[in-house]
């Protein structure tokens, strides 16, 4: 719990780190309907693609320097020496980032979803999907950033971007299921299954990558 508390403290004091991505997300959500001349029906159809892409890009932006500062100032070095369980610290860090950035984005995305579709029921269905998918994005992009920790973040992120294409395809299917009033819970369970594997494996892989960078 102490690790989570400290990561909260660090992230909340860096308002640029969490407020920036949330504001960018809001900006995209507001700007999109203002910049395209489409009917309400077309807007509702294309809204979800924008929602997923915006969430993806904003999480990519949010995780840009998730490990960089700790690496540069020697904090990760101390963690590697003192703490036996580096993967737990990394998992906690990603969790805090998701809690501070991913959860607000999911809630804001849901509000925009209800506003655009004028259906409150859509909101109830989209919120859990957004929560799970932003956590998956957060983990995968953290992995990418760890890969290119000493070489600039963009390369690692670009390498990991294709890994998220199956998630985007599933998210597309979720929207189709919701639109046609089909049972979408299968897709949600699939996303939860993917997430449960990812949160076990990715922090472990990242801890190995970071130890390799420290060496």
């Amino acid at each position, binding site marked *: 719990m102490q690790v989570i508390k400290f990561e909260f403290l660090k992230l909340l004091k860096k308002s640029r780190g969490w407020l920036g991505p949330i504001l960018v997300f809001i900006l995209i959500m507001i700007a999109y309907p203002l910049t395209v001349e489409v009917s309400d029906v077309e807007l509702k159809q294309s809204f979800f693609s924008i929602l997923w892409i915006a969430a993806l890009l904003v999480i990519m932006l949010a995780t840009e320097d998730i490990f960089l500062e700790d690496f540069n*100032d020697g904090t990760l*070095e101390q963690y590697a020496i003192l703490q036996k369980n580096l993967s737990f610290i990394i998992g906690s860090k990603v969790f805090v980032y998701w809690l501070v950035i991913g959860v607000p984005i999911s809630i804001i995305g849901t509000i925009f979803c209800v506003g655009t579709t004028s259906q409150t029921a859509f909101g109830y269905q989209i919120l859990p999907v957004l929560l799970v998918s932003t956590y998956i994005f957060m983990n995968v992009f953290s992995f990418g950033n760890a890969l290119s920790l000493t070489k600039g973040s963009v390369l690692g992120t670009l390498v990991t971007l294709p890994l998220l294409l199956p998630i985007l395809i599933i998210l597309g299917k979720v929207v189709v299921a919701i639109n046609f009033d089909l049972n979408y819970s299968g897709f949600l369970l699939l996303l939860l299954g993917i997430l449960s594997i990812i949160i076990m494996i990715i922090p472990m892989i990242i801890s190995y990558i970071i130890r390799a960078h420290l060496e």
Partner: protein
Amino acid sequence: MNALVKAQNLSYKINDKKLFQGISFELLKGKALHIQGENGSGKTTLLRMVCGLTKPTKGDLITLTDKEVCFIGHKNAIKQYLNVEDNLALMNLNNHHDLQKYLSVFDLDKSLDINIANLSFGQQKKIALLRLFLNRSDLLILDEPCVGLDTNSQEILVDFLKKELANGKGIIYSSHIFLDFDSDSLGI
């Protein structure tokens, strides 16, 4: 067992360049080892090996302590955007019974609410050194601990290290500034 570290025939290579080779030493409890060498000779790399951060290309290194190793390196591991108090909490030192004593010794007790970015380099180094002064380790690894410290603080550091040696702790350090306490030398 009286030994804290045993190193046998250590070598380290970066790409094809040999940094050092055939380094062997043993550190006993209550003893200090001064790693000496020119810039770029591999002193920091050797210290990081003892901490377990870097693996030797060849050779064996065993650390025989159950407690965590205290390492003070070039990087201070403090957050510039947090104040001193928050940094102490991050270092898990905020509840240490000797904290107030060392804050007073280093004249930091009135700077607890000041952001690290507003402190001088020397003051930042003193905060990083609190990790050493409030350590819970048997083995202290110090890489140039005196950089940025004034003469008075260097004397406090030397006195502290003498006490730690008397308490049976082991110290491995590198320093271009002379530290006045008994230690063996290892040239690389």
